[in-house]
């Protein structure tokens, strides 16, 4: 009988303690969820923005092979970047693995040492890092 009375006296603490514990649990889980979602969404937004900017640069690339000449065993290829973004290009014929930077509105000459016979038709392809390309057909004089 006494124990029941003692229990009834202690019941006053339980709702407060349980409310505090429940609140703490809600706040903790909520805070973790908040922090996680914020960082996840920030990363998602940054990734998306980065990919969109990369895509924007890709569609903005504009370049041409302005002129090609062959002189004393050297193939000269002039690439003109008339777009708004700087580009990096390589010549894919003949396979020439050095990347050359061409700033926006610049004309850049790429020299390739190669032996070509007169009257040989050469298809020159210049490809950018963003996988745009320009083609030029050249007949060796």
């Amino acid at each position: 009988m006494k124990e029941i009375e003692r229990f009834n006296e202690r019941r006053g603490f339980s709702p407060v303690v349980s409310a505090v514990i429940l609140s703490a649990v809600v706040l903790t889980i909520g805070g973790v969820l908040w922090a996680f979602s914020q960082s996840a969404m920030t990363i998602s937004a940054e990734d998306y923005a980065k990919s969109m900017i990369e895509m924007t640069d890709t569609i903005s690339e504009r370049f041409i092979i302005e002129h090609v000449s062959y002189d004393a065993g050297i193939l000269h290829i002039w690439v003109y970047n008339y777009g708004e973004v700087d580009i990096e290009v390589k010549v894919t014929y003949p396979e020439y693995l050095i990347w050359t930077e061409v700033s926006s509105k610049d004309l850049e000459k790429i020299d390739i040492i190669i032996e070509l016979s007169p009257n040989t038709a050469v298809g020159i392809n210049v490809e950018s890092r963003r996988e745009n390309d320009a083609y030029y057909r050249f007949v060796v004089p």
Partner: protein
Amino acid sequence: MHTTGSSCRRGTSTLMGTLIFIGIIFSAFIPMMLVMRQADTIYEKEKFQVGRLDEEKAMENIYFYLLPTIEDEPIITLKISNRCEIAVRIIHVWINGEPREVDLLISPTSNGELELGGLIDPVYPDPVSFSIMIVTDKGNIFLPQSGIPTYNLLGDGKWDMDFYTIYIMMLHPQSQLHILVQTTEKVYFDYPVANEEQGYAINVQDPGTYQIIVTKLLGKPGEEELEDTGFTISVNEVNPMALVIV
């Protein structure tokens, strides 16, 4: 009493959960959506600008002739006619495979001139012929409508021309034209010009003064009016080429 306490706790938790949810929406989701929307806007804007650049590039239409400026010196004048609705900026001129940087802006449907001097390199074989092309800032390459003049350095040091040339350049190729080129003795050219033609190079063997009459057909079909425009020009050893812009 027991039921009321439990509801109260649940109510507090629900309220806090709602606040946290709203907090997540406002502090994470909405900023993310705004950043993504801004990136989309930048992409769309760039796509529009690039599309416009491509359209303008396709619209560019220029027409140019090479005219030796001075008989005894290797100086060439490029007479350039802009035939399109947008301004064209010439940035490179290629002379025998060597680029020269220039900057010439030509307004829509008007003309410009570029004088190119210092053309003779002593190491070039003689005689020198000039292969010239021009490049615009939008990446278009244009070749001259006239022939390639030759400069004979070791001979008499003059332009090598077997004939004299009168260029007639049409500013509005859509007009229907009839061209008559004549001297007092002889008619050299007397033909209608097709709509799509942009110019004519008429070679004449004799130096002298030529009269050119250009007849334009104006107005709607059935109500045509003829408008004659006359020019008198001279071609000779000093000026082997003459240009008439209609």
